[in-house]
């Protein structure tokens, strides 16, 4: 980080159905972090082309809103950070195009950021966790991560679909609303459930598999609802209890393996209170601490890109505009974390 002078970064995130622009200072202050979500009707999901179109329509007003909230002018911005990947191609490209244009108009350097690293660094910034085991759970990712030797290494992950994707598709077969998010609606409904229905539970070492429980749910849910043997609330309750137990178990395995006591949950599914509560019981039992954030930072946002952007900017990791490409596939353990020395 540049000594003595506070640097300011604007971050652009648009890898899935949220578009966010955030401004963060090198002191770690979040000056503004507005976000818009593309919400589809119940029973449907978001498609790349429509999502990109949504982002294109709202991103410029979002940048203006962000500057206004932060009470800054473009002259105050020292660098622009954007999500290089992973994510959906079309939304990523739409976001990057706007970022590139602004970088040239404002004449500021560009910093690429890995989306997953963004979640981890934002979680560390907001909670103050130093070196925790990270459970990263979202619509596209399910990973148990630990830092070692300049990289965020993946100890366990899903071997098929992501947990958020599994929840979304489960909500679709129940016909739940996508507003504000399918996962949130499952969480609310689950609170009214009482009957526990056994569902497939699949843990392989530190890896998990969700395809089995999803097929089970898709096959059985409609039948059970028709027969009246279970309510939607019971099904949401049992579904959550089962998949979250799998997640807590693989996190605990990684903690035991790495001899780490603390755990940090990041990603959209991470704002689920039941998941947090279960994780806290496990961490307490091990004498550790659970670090979690709320929906402002768990769910994709611009600040989570701006902050690691600043960390990389402090190391001089800028790229020229012609190299500011995007990629749909970009592993968490790919980028070198050169701002950490431990």
């Amino acid at each position, binding site marked *: 980080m540049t000594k003595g002078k506070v640097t300011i970064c604007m971050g652009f995130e648009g890898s899935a159905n949220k578009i966010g622009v955030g401004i963060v200072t090198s002191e770690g202050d979040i000056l503004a972090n507005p976000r818009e979500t593309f919400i589809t009707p119940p029973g449907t999901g978001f498609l790349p082309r429509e999502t990109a179109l949504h982002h294109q329509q709202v991103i410029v007003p979002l940048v203006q809103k962000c500057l206004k909230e932060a009470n800054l002018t473009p002259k105050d911005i020292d660098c622009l950070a954007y999500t290089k990947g992973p994510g959906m191609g079309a939304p990523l490209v739409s976001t990057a195009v706007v970022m590139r244009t602004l970088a040239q108009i404002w004449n500021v350097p560009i910093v690429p950021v890995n989306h997953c690293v963004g979640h981890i660094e934002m979680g560390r910034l907001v909670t103050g966790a130093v070196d925790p085991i990270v459970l990263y759970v979202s619509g596209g990712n399910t990973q148990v991560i630990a830092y070692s030797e300049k990289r965020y290494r993946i100890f366990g992950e899903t071997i*098929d679909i992501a947990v958020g994707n599994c929840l979304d598709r489960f909500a679709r077969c129940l016909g739940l609303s996508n507003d504000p998010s399918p996962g949130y609606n499952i969480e609310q409904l689950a609170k009214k459930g009482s009957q526990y229905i056994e569902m497939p539970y699949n843990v*392989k*070492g530190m890896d998990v598999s969700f395809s089995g429980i999803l097929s089970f749910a898709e096959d059985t849910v409609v039948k059970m609802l028709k027969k009246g043997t279970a309510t939607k609330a019971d099904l949401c309750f049992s579904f959550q209890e089962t998949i979250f137990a799998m997640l807590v178990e693989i996190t605990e*395995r990684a903690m035991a393996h790495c001899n780490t006591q603390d755990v940090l949950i990041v990603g959209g599914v991470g704002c689920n209170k039941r998941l947090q509560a279960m994780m806290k019981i496990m961490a307490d*039992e091990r004498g550790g601490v659970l670090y979690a954030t709320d929906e402002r930072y768990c769910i994709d946002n611009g600040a989570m890109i701006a902050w690691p952007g600043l960390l990389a900017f402090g190391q001089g990791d800028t790229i020229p505009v012609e190299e500011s490409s995007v990629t749909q*596939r970009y*592993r968490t353990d790919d980028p070198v974390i050169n701002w950490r020395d431990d």
Partner: protein
Amino acid sequence: MATKEEDQTVGLMPKCRLLCQGAEGRVFETKYWKKKAILKQRFDKMYRHPILNKKLTRQRLGMEVRGMMKARKLGIKTPTVLLVDQETNSIVMEKMPGIMVKDWLKAGKYSEADLDTVLATIGKMVANLHDGSLIHGDLTTSNMIIRTESLDITFIDFGLSFNCSAQNGPEDKGVDLYVMERAFLNAHADLPGLFEKVLGAYEGETSLWKSTFNRYSEVRMRGRKRSMVG
């Protein structure tokens, strides 16, 4: 979490001293007919729904004991099972002298030749397990015990082990190898090339190399190239 110092009664065994809290349960040192023994107790995981907890605890206790017995029949060193108590979900087993392979590797007090011997032994042991249709399920370097003088290796923690069918064999073995590869890569990032040597020894030992390797390569691609959105 109980303090390490005090002796306590766990299940049927008096005078148990807590050694560590693993992912699956608490591990105590105790005595069984005057011999040093290990007691592993799966305590209730309060974060799990009671029905799920009971099912998993039962299932894994059974799988662990069966896995250890079967591995032994296949000629793989595992601790001798001395006592199983389903009421308190605890297993008493022989205490294996030695340290975790993870710690042995981290300490780095070995010669190049010793390292090669150990990696080859691990590869052969896994091949023997797999050829006997037994999947360990959690092949990490924390679940392997090494005797530093003789370099003998013991496999422990069979809680996720199971017998694979002929049909699913290649897939299950492929996943087992993939789990092991990542355990080596992640826990020993400073020592590259360890897993390749293990896999080399596995290839030399197994009679089912082709089908297993093809599936393992497939599983690996799944993990590495999966698109990640969100």
